[in-house]
């Protein structure tokens, strides 16, 4: 345990620059959103407290917004506002709005009717009643709403990294993708501390509030503006082209780290979620992205893969990995899964992915069509000889593979199948496998090597030029370390790749990553 904490501390020290930037971005994001939410929520809350017939619809809409899953809300924002700070702030403020709005409404309508009547009867104008009586008396409730909103916003702001708005989510999601606990904690602990700290500080401010109302109401906005300004700190460096990399790519040796060390690539980089990255590139908000070579969106958005002329991206051949005890329990499983081996090459996979990712066909349908076309499909049998649990990561290709395996198992064996699709990143999927939550899932040789085994640089360099060597190494090591078997590769290589818009790459005459580097160096800002 001690050693573990040491490691986290070391990690945080080593990454202190990044940690500081992310923390400041996080604070900034939180408070810009909060400030705007207060500016909207408070007057609107007062308004609906006055005109009660609007209160139902307004609170209803705010309530519905609150129930939209945060990722979905961020997703909705992209077509409207693109990527980066703007959509993140809008999404966050929509989340912060409900508690502020509802508490303002409840606070003001909750003021004792006799007290309000007395104020009116004394001869106060509407304004005077509001500022001298209603707002001061509602203040504790309103403040409680702002505190709730703050805590929510600090939490949801971690998701801002999905759409390239920065914040501590970069570490958290990078850590989950990279199976790096220290990185997760380096993001999660400061985020939690921020939530606790802001809640505490606002509680203190509230106590002050009763006695020195005027100073407190003046400090609050000032404080909000001050904290908001953190977000506006200039980014590290600018460049002609803008890159968007996934949190996973950012932290990988065969990702951004390799680009920097092997190619010496210096490019302005935003961290962004895979789900929105391709579209952002297509919409020219990003120029270079880190994608997968078999991704269907490559075809959909007319992107081109840059040649990895220095071989930093190791081979990523897909194969199902199965726990040994599952193979024993289900003796027919291995032969069934191997039915798919050698059947899907890169272009076939890209085409299949295109159908799910872009044509929005269901993975089941795409899987069935493929199996039928290749004469592999058999209708489901009895399914009474036990349940095989299939896992998959949270993207289309894995869904398709999981569907295919499910159909094959049902068709060729008497086993039944339960699928647990959408298991976040590598870490979540692999942990589910080792903890006997699932029996197998499709994994990639490169991921097994670099994200799970993490051998020394020397070993990696000796392996990554050859797909067979890589496969042999992971097969041997997984057996030894985890009692997990790599079955035969499916055939395609879904490696990391840098990609650009075809048209732009052509105009700028960029074909390889080295071309890109040269272009960036000769066209510095």
């Amino acid at each position, binding site marked *: 345990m001690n050693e573990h904490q040491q490691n986290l501390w070391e990690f945080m020290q080593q990454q202190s620059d990044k940690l500081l930037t992310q923390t400041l971005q996080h604070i900034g994001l939180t408070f810009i959103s909060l400030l705007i939410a207060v500016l909207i929520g408070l007057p609107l809350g007062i308004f609906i407290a006055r005109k009660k017939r609007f209160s139902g619809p307004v609170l209803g809409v705010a309530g519905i917004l609150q129930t939209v899953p945060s990722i979905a809300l961020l997703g909705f924002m992209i077509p409207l506002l693109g990527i980066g700070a703007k959509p993140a702030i809008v999404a966050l403020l929509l989340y912060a709005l409900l508690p502020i709005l509802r508490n303002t409404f409840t606070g003001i309508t909750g003021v*004792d009717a*006799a*007290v309000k*009547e*007395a*104020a*009116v*009867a*004394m*001869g*106060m*104008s509407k304004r*005077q009643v509001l500022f001298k*009586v209603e707002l*001061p*008396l509602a203040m504790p409730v309103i403040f409680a709403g702002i505190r709730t909103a703050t805590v929510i916003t600090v939490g949801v702001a971690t998701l801002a990294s999905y759409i390239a708005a920065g914040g501590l989510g970069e570490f958290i999601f990078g850590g989950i993708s990279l199976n790096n606990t220290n990185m997760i904690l380096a993001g999660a602990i400061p985020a939690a501390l921020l939530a606790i700290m802001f809640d505490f500080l606002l509680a203190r401010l509230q106590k002050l509030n*009763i006695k020195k109302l005027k100073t407190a109401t003046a400090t609050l906005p000032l404080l909000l503006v001050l904290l908001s300004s953190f977000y506006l700190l200039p980014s590290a460096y600018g460049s002609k082209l803008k890159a968007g990399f996934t949190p996973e790519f950012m932290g990988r040796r065969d990702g951004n780290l390799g680009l920097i060390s092997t190619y010496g690539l210096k490019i302005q980089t935003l961290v962004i979620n895979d789900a929105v990255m391709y579209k952002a590139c297509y919409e020219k908000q990003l120029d270079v992205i880190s994608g997968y070579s078999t991704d269907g969106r490559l075809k959909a958005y007319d992107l081109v893969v840059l040649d990895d002329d220095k071989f930093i991206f190791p081979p990523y051949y897909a194969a199902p990995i199965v726990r040994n005890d599952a193979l024993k329990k289900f003796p027919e499983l291995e032969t069934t899964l191997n039915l798919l081996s050698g059947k899907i090459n890169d272009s076939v996979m890209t085409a299949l992915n295109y159908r799910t990712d872009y044509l929005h066909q269901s993975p089941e349908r795409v899987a069935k069509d493929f199996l039928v076309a290749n004469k592999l499909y058999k209708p489901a049998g009895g399914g009474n000889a036990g349940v095989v649990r299939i896992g998959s990561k949270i993207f289309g290709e894995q869904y398709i593979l999981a569907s295919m395996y499910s159909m094959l198992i049902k068709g060729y064996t008497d086993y039944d199948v339960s699928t647990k699709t959408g298991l976040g990143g590598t870490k979540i999927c692999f942990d589910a496998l080792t903890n006997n939550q699932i029996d197998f899932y499709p994994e990639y040789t490169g991921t097994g090597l670099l994200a799970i085994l993490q051998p020394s640089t020397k070993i990696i360099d000796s392996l990554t030029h050859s797909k067979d060597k890589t496969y042999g190494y992971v097969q041997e090591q997984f057996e030894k370390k985890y009692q997990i078997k790599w079955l035969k590769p499916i055939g395609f290589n879904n490696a990391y790749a840098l990609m650009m818009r075809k048209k732009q790459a052509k105009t700028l005459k960029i074909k390889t990553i080295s071309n890109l580097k040269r272009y960036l160096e000769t066209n510095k800002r």
Partner: protein
Amino acid sequence: MIKAEHLSKDFGKVKAVDSISFEVEKHENLILLGTSGCGKTTTLKMINRLIEPTSGSIFINGKNIMDQPPELLRRGIGYVLQNNGLFPHYTVAENIAVVPQLLGWDKKRADKRISELLEKLHLTKDYLKAYPRELSGGQQQRVGLARALVADPEVLLMDEPFGALDNVTRSKIHAEFKALDELKRKTIIMVTHDVQEAFELGDRICLMDKGKIVQDGTPADLLFKPKNDFVRNFLKEQKLHLEFKTISLDDIWEWLPSKQKHTTAKPLSAATDFWTALEHFNFDHADAITIKNKETGDVKLASFEELMSAFYQFKKQTPHE
């Protein structure tokens, strides 16, 4: 001083107040009496425009209240609420100072007036910095009264002002209320559902039912010349008690034994009400009480039986129902 003409207020289809008219003389204390929902509170609140009338008009000193901005009108009318309606976030001093502040008084003038009022209402200066929740119910009601009186308005509206108090505190405040000279200079309209309170504090009573005034008259009018069964039934339960309180020894003077006796006991004034006279029997264990007529200077001596017999003769003589 205050004049309401054909005043009506509809809440949807319900006629809360149905074309009523009444007048209040200067320095008079008018009670709006009735059960819940009879329209008495609605009537009261129309006078300071907390509720706007559907039709009809109200004049104060000949000026139509609808011709003035409501805020300015209200600053000139004191208002006391049942649950005192004190501002919980203000101290006693700040609560009382609300209207002076709205009227733009300087601090010195306001402070002087506030301490003067507190003294009259038997509150010490220690309470100035206290918050309402730290006071007892009776004290809160006194502060509420002070807040209404601070700018010395001509008119005072009181909405069941003593309704939330316990009986002991209430009778104590009733006594203070009657003794307070500030209030003798006011024209007061008070709403209550408490018959005894109405008889004790009112110069005149408007008994209301279903949005209409059933009878408008002095307490004695209501008691001895009830207009209809509604009035009779309304007072029935407490009739004897009310009669005792309403009739003074003056009223029954002629039926008291005329022969004079010399006693050393301190004589009661003939203006004393019958109830108080009876109380003297209880407390003094006296066989007879001495009564002195202030106007004529005559003194009469009456035993308990003689007093009661005079009371019944008075009642027989008054034109009844």
